[in-house]
């Protein structure tokens, strides 16, 4: 089983990398960009077949290490 974790800055917390990237895209004449947010993806291989167990375990990983919940949100997808 695999967990795909996406970590990104919370709504309302300015994302300097996203902002710079947006400006770069606009300078290349890409139109209609409303916002760019940059995050990171962490892929974890787990030796369990129990979805619930995996979800719970990865949630704890996010809360303790993978995300800094002062500034970041995360999503978990178990596949």
């Amino acid at each position, binding site marked *: 089983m695999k967990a795909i974790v996406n970590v990104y800055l919370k709504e309302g*917390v300015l994302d300097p990398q996203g902002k710079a990237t947006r400006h770069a895209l606009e300078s290349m004449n890409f139109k209609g960009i409303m916002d760019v947010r940059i995050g990171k993806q962490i892929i974890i291989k787990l030796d369990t077949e129990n979805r619930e167990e995996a979800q719970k375990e990865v949630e704890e990983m996010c809360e303790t290490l993978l995300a*800094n919940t002062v*500034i970041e949100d995360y999503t978990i997808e178990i596949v």
Partner: protein
Amino acid sequence: MQKTPMNVVILRFPGTNCEFDTQYAFDKLGHKTELIWHKEESLPKKTDLVIVPGGFSYGDYLRSGSIARFSPVMKAVVAYANQGGKVLGICNGFQILTEVGLLPGALKRNNNLHFISKYQHLKVVNSDNAFLNQYSDSDILNIPIAHADGNYYIDDNGLANLEENGQILLRYCDALGDREVVNGSVTSIAGICNKEKNIFGLMPHPERAMEEILGSIDGIKMLQGFEQ
């Protein structure tokens, strides 16, 4: 009057690079220093001050300071701090102290995405604490900064608490003392302490401002603040 030398403990993680500058600074002031490897599970019994020095612990992987906070020695530091022991985090040390939850808020990537390394003016916001008591409120200092992730963030409630409790130590300013946007920090905050005022964190490097010939001696009084 001769001051009693302090026993200063300086932590070392893989990637720490300011430990010797920090040791030099405290040695120069006549204190006893000891470098402690991150695998240690306890601090020396007679510790008067713990320094979490600057550098790039664990290569800044994941987030600056995020992995160092799980080092064995940090458990001992948290216990020491919770008993009122004095702790100072400089630069990466500040990042580690926010990650481990000893200080509120977080440090994000600088808003211009650059690694900023230069002398920077700072204004003393609150001097009523063990760190800045040799200075007065509104004093203007000149101390080097060198960081990529110094953009201090805290939410509005958190900021109001910092203000109310006098926890804001230093703000970035220009030579005249007017607030300056350096890295995007909330209200240009450069350093804070906890509510109990025994845990301190700042992005600038006082240990690099110890010699006139190197440009500034404004760091001396900061470190002397801890002397009893």
